[in-house]
């Protein structure tokens, strides 16, 4: 079945993930799983960006902004203490609807805040609305202009995060509670939850990959690629290019926001460093080095490079490494490094067949 062939790498991916767990457990090095989990959430951003950049051919230098919007929204809603406003009609109404939860923070304070599910839903809704409002004018732009406009958006989000008291300014927001999913599973960064969070993160990431794979192999995926190749021709064949570009922009923003929201619960905090322009540049660099229109390449590079970065391998050159990767990619392989056509060319050359 043609339709099922696209899922073979998913099975391979599951095997790699389980094997990695067993190897780390045998080597008594499960602490690595913490950074792998974090890298997986960052990889969610580049999967979305891969759809936007690699398939639809539209750049965004503002995706750290969407990641931060997801993270900050859940952080504010789950930590803002409503206990003193308990009797206010709106708060009481939310409480009776089950939208609020009572819990104790690390210092034993009683906190009444929005439940993580409500916060998560609100984060997605807010991200979708912002992506729509920003995207409507911006996605009409092309090339450098689109890059600059999205860059501007990223800068604005960073400045808002840095300047707004309720967002914790330079300190960000800490004390974010875990996110209980179901059956005792929870997004929680503490050591006893390490293994289950490794699998939770990978479940989310592989789900995103499967949805994305389905999309790129569908009618919509073909339309997105046709926009990338020649927008005027695509338009003349009945593809509503503006609507498709906008939709994939919002979709990629949602992927970024999910990554941001879950990583915030996992870390228990979020700070303005998540919203910096260098983070956006990093995501673009990962998509480029992963092969642009290559979901698996982008996922692999996203996890690998973020893992190395989180382990501190690049030291103080962290941002420089990603900037360097981007420069190198643009000079040496502007089409992306891990690329299906490149791989095909190598395979056919090895098979002794030349392409005319």
């Amino acid at each position, binding site marked *: 079945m043609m*339709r099922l062939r696209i899922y073979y790498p998913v099975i391979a991916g599951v095997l790699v993930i389980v094997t990695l767990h067993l190897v780390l457990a045998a080597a008594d090095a499960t602490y690595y799983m913490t950074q792998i989990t974090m890298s997986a959430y960052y990889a969610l951003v580049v999967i979305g960006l891969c759809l936007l950049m690699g398939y639809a051919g539209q750049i965004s230098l503002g995706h750290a902004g969407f990641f931060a919007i997801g993270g900050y929204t859940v952080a504010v809603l789950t930590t803002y203490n409503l206990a003193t406003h308990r009797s206010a009609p709106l708060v009481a109404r939310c409480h009776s609807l089950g939208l609020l939860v009572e819990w104790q923070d690390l210092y034993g304070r009683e906190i009444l805040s929005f439940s993580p599910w409500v916060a998560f839903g609100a984060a997605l809704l807010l991200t979708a609305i912002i992506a729509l409002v920003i995207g409507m004018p911006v996605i009409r732009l092309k090339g450098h202009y689109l890059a600059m406009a999205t860059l501007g958006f990223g800068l604005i989000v960073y400045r808002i995060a840095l300047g707004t008291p309720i967002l914790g300014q330079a300190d960000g927001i800490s004390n974010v509670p875990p996110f209980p999913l179901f059956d005792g599973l929870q997004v929680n960064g503490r050591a006893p939850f390490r293994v289950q969070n490794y699998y939770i993160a990978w479940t989310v990431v592989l789900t995103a990959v499967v*949805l*994305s794979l*389905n*999309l790129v192999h*569908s*009618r*919509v*995926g*073909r*339309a997105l*690629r*046709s926009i990338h*190749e*020649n927008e*005027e*021709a*695509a*338009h*003349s*064949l*009945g*593809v*509503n*290019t503006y609507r498709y570009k906008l*939709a994939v922009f919002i*979709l990629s923003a949602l992927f970024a926001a999910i990554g941001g929201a879950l990583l915030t619960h996992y870390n228990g905090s979020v700070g303005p460093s998540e919203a910096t322009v260098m983070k956006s540049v990093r995501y673009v660099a990962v998509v480029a080095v992963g092969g642009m229109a290559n979901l698996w390449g982008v996922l692999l590079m996203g996890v690998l490079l973020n893992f190395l970065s989180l382990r501190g391998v690049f030291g103080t050159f962290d941002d420089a490494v990603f900037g360097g990767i981007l420069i190198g990619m643009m000079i040496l392989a502007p089409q992306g490094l891990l690329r299906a*056509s490149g791989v095909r060319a190598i395979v056919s050359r090895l098979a002794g067949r030349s*392409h*005319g």
Partner: protein
Amino acid sequence: MDNVLLATKNLHRSFGGVHAVCDVTFNVPPGAIKAVIGPNGAGKTTLFNLIAGTLTPHQGEVLFRGRRITGRKPHAVAAMGIARTFQTTKLFGHMTVLENVMVGRHARTRSGFIAGMLNLPWTWREDRQTRDKAMAILENLDLTSYAPETASNLPFGRQRLVEFARALATEPTLLLLDEPAAGLNIYETQELAELIQRIRDRGITCLIVEHDMSLVMNISDEVVVLDQGKQIAEGPPAAIQRNPDVIRIYLGDDHA
């Protein structure tokens, strides 16, 4: 309106001070092959862009099957049944020939983002039908063997045919062909003439912008002549060939 498929009424479009298309009015009857000719810069491609929705006219209107389509976006115009090819072929170069033609089915299929992401079974069926239809069109144009090839690897003449296939995949009522013979040799041009007639015989009306006079005079039922944006003649090919104004713009005053 039975004998008019497409009508332009006093179409006008200027770029800065240049009147690219100025007061152009003509009808295209259904089932006809109609040609628009004129020297370089006469406004032929601009005229096509006005019909296809790529440009909006400053004055005048375009009627398709009696309905005003002026100002509609190209994707909406395509969905109504107007397909086009481009002066310089605009294939999706990194996609296969088959995929190129499958994109042509876009307006006739409907699975969207959500259905696509969830890979719903009915989208499989739809995709299979899209593939079958695309293959049938390729077969009709003798392109079957090229189906899995990357489009940009094809020789130029074949690329042009793929663009035809892609346009036909939209199931158009009216096909706009912008200089289909440009860059083709005389044999390929002859094949093209037969192809256009075959397309017309299947009930698809053709409006052609063309430089190649022998092609135009051979296959067209009617010809419109533009010069510097203005319509200077309209009529059957034989009459156009004798028209002194047409001879003057093509050959100069001495020959009129």
